[in-house]
């Protein structure tokens, strides 16, 4: 169905070489300066980007009012039980129960209050409840893998779930995604909109994964890895992880540079 995405003949070694080459090129281009926090959109080792990245430069836009605020999600949108992904069915899901908590902040360190966080993930066996997920691992009748939370006044969120398993994904031969949880965020401005993935510390698949490696700055990449936090763990119940998120966007109205007409 998607020939570009399915290249099982390509070996992990070839992908590793492409990642190394690309990372070196980005470092050289940055010439010792700051590397970008976000992935490049045309990260070739992740084959699905090939036909899905723009080839033109993005056009700088002055955000208007609609871009400087976010939809008014609120507590009426989300039931408190949606923060616990282990209680959505009659039985207990299989796997390792975990708690994930942290704060959502803007670039100035202000909490993102009363805003929507959406979560989705594979089950403990690495299988999504999705008809196109063909990984022959068991579905768990007691785990859907979907959660929603409205952040508190201090920007905090707290989630109970099952640690997801790694899974194969056909980007190349023997391609396996590190265990991860998908998160979707709205900030106080729509331009802060962010969808990302949270990873678990010490995963041996990090170096092999073109999606994780699409962020070429190692420090930025590390920011997607939750920390194990023993104070979050609950006795006889669940291990705890802490993961803080920073959403940044324009702080003020962008002024068109005077030489824009000549650019």
């Amino acid at each position, binding site marked *: 169905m998607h020939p570009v*995405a399915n290249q099982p003949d390509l070996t992990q070694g070839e992908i590793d070489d492409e990642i190394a080459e690309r990372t070196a090129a980005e470092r050289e281009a940055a010439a010792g300066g700051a590397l*970008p926090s*976000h*992935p*490049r*959109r045309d990260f070739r080792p*992740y084959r*699905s*980007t*090939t*036909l*899905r*990245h*723009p*080839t*033109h430069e993005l*056009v*700088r*836009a*002055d955000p*208007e*009012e*609609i*871009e400087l605020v976010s*939809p*008014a*999600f*609120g507590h009426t*949108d989300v039931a408190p039980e949606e923060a616990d992904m282990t209680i959505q069915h009659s039985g207990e899901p299989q796997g390792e129960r975990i708690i994930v908590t942290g704060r959502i902040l803007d*670039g100035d*360190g202000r909490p993102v209050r009363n805003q*929507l966080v*959406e979560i*989705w993930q*594979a089950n403990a066996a690495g299988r*999504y409840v*999705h008809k*196109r*997920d063909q990984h022959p691992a068991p579905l768990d009748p007691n785990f859907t*893998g*979907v959660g929603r939370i409205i952040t508190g006044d201090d920007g905090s969120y707290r989630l109970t779930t099952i640690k997801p398993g790694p899974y194969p994904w056909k980007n190349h031969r023997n391609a396996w995604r590190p265990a991860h949880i*998908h998160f*979707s965020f709205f900030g106080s401005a*729509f*331009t*802060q*909109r*962010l*969808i*990302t*993935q949270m990873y678990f510390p010490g995963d041996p698949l990090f170096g092999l994964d073109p*999606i994780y490696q699409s*962020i070429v700055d190692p420090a930025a990449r590390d*920011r*997607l890895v939750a920390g194990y936090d023993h104070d979050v763990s609950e006795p006889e119940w669940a291990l705890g992880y802490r993961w803080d*998120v*920073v959403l*940044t966007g*324009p702080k003020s109205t962008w002024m068109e540079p005077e030489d*824009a007409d000549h650019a």
Partner: protein
Amino acid sequence: MPEQSEHEYLQTPSQTVGPFFGYALPYAGGPDVRAPWQPDAVRLHGRVLDGAGEGVPDAFVEIWGADATGRPSTELGSFDRDQHGFAGFGRSAADRAGNYSFTTIKPGAMREGSAPYLLVAVFGRGILQHLFTRAYFGDEAEANASDPLLGRIDEGRRDTLIAVPDAERSYRFDIVLQGEGETVFLDYGTEI
């Protein structure tokens, strides 16, 4: 670069939504920003296309628009709302052919001298960082002619930001990720 605490709150990087968001992000009523039976409802629809001209089935589109007077809605309950309100935000998953569709209202212009538009965000497998664009309205030629953003776009590409009237109260807005007719995508200074 400003000196104060520039490294204190470093931004969290973006990652692709992947292909398996379909059971998590779309929600009942997501594409109905305005109930279709309301007299002011308009349709905004189109296809998300990749660089080979194929529809992108594992994409979704969000719109965020002002009300008819040009003000962002502060109505609570964007998910769980009745058929009478207008919260301004919508989400539509592409179908197998890459089609998406919303019903909403035509917003008012937000500033003196600018044209009305809907803010559009595109997400999908293979899209490592979502893409922003704007859908202006093809039947607002006069306002579009004076809009500051449209005025800065190359004439050859300006039409990619215009939703074309294709039926009564209906506009077509295709989103081309790459190649011929590539949509103009916008950067708000978040590309760091």
